[in-house]
């Protein structure tokens, strides 16, 4: 198992969502603990925020509308944000709609996640050339990109924490991930609305945020369009100090808290995370996998959209002279043919065994490996499954088969 140093230990075990009374404390915490130092930043001050980020050398990346979806990409100004847009999500379904307000963050998560920046879909790991010692490295390790992540949702903060444990929390650290992540500034945005596919409340990863950010914002669309803001680090406090702010009114704090509670209350999908490892380990031989495989296309969309899936493949290449060689890493998926290839054939030949690998890892064995579930309740795997396979429904079916 990965023995992470104490500092990488996950948040204290989350309480299951099925027992609402028992988890009330946790739920309360996740639903918007607003500390006293909270201030408000006016919508009009976003230009100042962007200028403050640029002055510090950050490349601001965040949500923007492209190809009918909200994706994460470079933001040159606040005008690039999806102002006045919202998303409609369901199993295998995603649509953008116009809102009747000017909200900057009036949607949840789309097909992208922040892993594309800290764990790029394709990356050259190294270049070598033949030399006196046989070969030598020719690419000097360069300074990591300096991102400001604007609009990181609570479930995504949890996902970043999970990938921290995968790539930098064990015996080995992946240098590019570790350095990119350490350099990145995280500006979280609490959700005040949920999509139909969201289930962060029961996973205890959202919709409010309480740690892991440099700056946290909660959008309030009242008489004045403002953001309740709080710093989570010195870096965040410095940036906040450069923005025009004023003390939050009680009404604004109430509105922010109510928004986060509204997002939690909207969530219909629920799951009991604590019971999942045992259920998954007991379900290896379930007939349900074959039934899922009748619909599953083994297309890997769920693993690409998932903010925590981390599997990768490598390809070694050389130039025509044979003097220069490179290794490239690309996102891979446990659904891909060849993923489990051994001499003599693949271990997992069937779609049933691949879906089982994905779900039992994500919800079950991940806990033994990394100290937390691999699922953050973002719902991406449900929305972006082309045939609408619903993880919540599959868990219910597996549980039903148990009892």
């Amino acid at each position, binding site marked *: 198992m990965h023995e992470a140093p104490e500092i990488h230990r996950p948040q204290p075990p989350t309480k299951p969502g099925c027992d609402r009374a028992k988890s009330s404390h946790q739920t309360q915490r996740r639903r918007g603990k607003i500390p006293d130092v909270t201030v408000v930043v006016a919508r009009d001050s976003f230009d100042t925020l962007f200028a403050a980020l640029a002055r510090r050398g950050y490349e601001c990346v965040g949500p923007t509308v492209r190809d009918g979806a909200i994706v994460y990409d470079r933001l040159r100004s606040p005008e690039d944000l999806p102002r006045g847009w919202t998303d409609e999500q369901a199993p295998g379904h995603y649509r953008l709609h116009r809102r009747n307000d000017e909200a900057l963050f009036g949607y949840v998560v789309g097909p992208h996640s922040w892993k594309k920046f800290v764990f790029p879909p394709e990356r050259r790991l190294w270049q070598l050339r033949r030399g006196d010692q046989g070969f030598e490295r020719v690419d000097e390790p360069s300074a990591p990109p300096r991102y400001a992540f604007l609009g990181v949702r609570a479930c995504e903060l949890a996902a970043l924490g999970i990938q921290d444990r995968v790539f930098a929390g*064990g*015996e080995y650290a992946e240098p590019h991930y570790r350095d990119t992540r350490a350099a990145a500034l995280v500006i979280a945005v609490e959700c005040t609305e949920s999509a139909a596919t969201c289930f962060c409340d029961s996973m205890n990863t959202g919709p409010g945020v309480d740690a892991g950010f440099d700056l946290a914002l909660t959008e309030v669309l009242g008489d004045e369009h403002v953001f309740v803001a709080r710093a989570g680090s010195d870096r965040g406090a410095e940036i906040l100090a450069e923005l025009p702010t004023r003390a939050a009114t009680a009404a604004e704090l109430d509105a922010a808290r109510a928004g986060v509670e509204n997002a939690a209350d909207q969530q219909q999908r629920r799951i009991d995370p604590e019971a999942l490892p045992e259920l998954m380990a007991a379900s290896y031989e379930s007939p349900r996998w074959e039934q899922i495989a009748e619909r599953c296309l083994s297309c890997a969309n769920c693993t690409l959209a998932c903010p925590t899936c981390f599997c990768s493949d490598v390809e070694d290449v050389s130039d025509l002279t044979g003097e220069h060689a490179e290794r490239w890493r690309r996102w891979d998926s446990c659904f891909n043919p060849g993923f489990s290839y051994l001499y003599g054939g693949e271990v997992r030949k069937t779609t049933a065994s691949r879906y089982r690998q994905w779900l039992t890892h994500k919800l079950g064995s991940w806990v*033994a490996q990394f100290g937390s579930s691999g699922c953050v309740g973002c719902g991406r795997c449900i929305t972006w499954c082309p045939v609408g396979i619903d993880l919540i429904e599959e868990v219910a079916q597996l549980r039903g088969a148990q009892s």
Partner: protein
Amino acid sequence: MASATSNVGNDASGEPLLPEPWTVLRAARETPDVVTLEIAPSAGSEPRRPRPGQFLMLYVFGIGEVPISVAGLGDRDAVVHTIRDVGAVTHALCQLGPGDTLGVRGPFGTAWPLEHERGRDIVIGAGGIGMAPLRPVVTAIMADRASFDDVVVMYGAREPRELLYTDEFASWRAADIQVEVTVDHADHAWDGHIGVVTTLIRYADFQPNEAAAFLCGPEIMMRFTAQELVQRGVDPRRVHLSMERNMKCAVGFCGHCQLGPEFVCLDGPVFPWPRMERLMAVHEL
């Protein structure tokens, strides 16, 4: 206040994904498709000394990288690997000769817990190329023979010409190690056992309740050998297996080698039978 992301990164510095240049000292063809290489670091680096059971990632410039178990330890930093030519990278490795360069990462993974089994009878069960990771166990026992009681090697291959290390059997036997060999398909010259490795157990001299076992070979062979040994009274916790899965990174990043909750690269490749028994019984896990 600390930085929100200050908990990222740890003491694990360095470049776990970057191969170091090593040089081939010696290359010997064992069988038509198996080669043994003795390799050593090219530069003045001081690599960690691998332990039997662990593996190294061997890289051929521009072609690719594969995990290969340690088949022996040479002088100083030299490491011995026995490689079967089954794919592009292993084919390129099998073409290397003395003075050629290859890339190395590692060592990685868990080792055979031989030091914990001192004073016991030792049962070594090998199938095919699975003899390679067990050869250094035999060597280590021979170097410390008095620390072990009865020792038996049960070794099976598909055909006589695929048997590895046959020229070493005499020295193993001279060290009071029982060597029982079987093949699936005999040729005219073969006068030994015919059948799977488990059929050799009845010829092996050991006290089950005093024995520890080290197994490496096809999963089906390890599974049935482990079951048979346990049935005869060997403590299941003293039955150790070396598992194989697809591996790209060897350090827990790429996800390929998972077997249930286990990362074969980090948690294995050597596992005690109780951790494998249920997992190996699940089809396509």
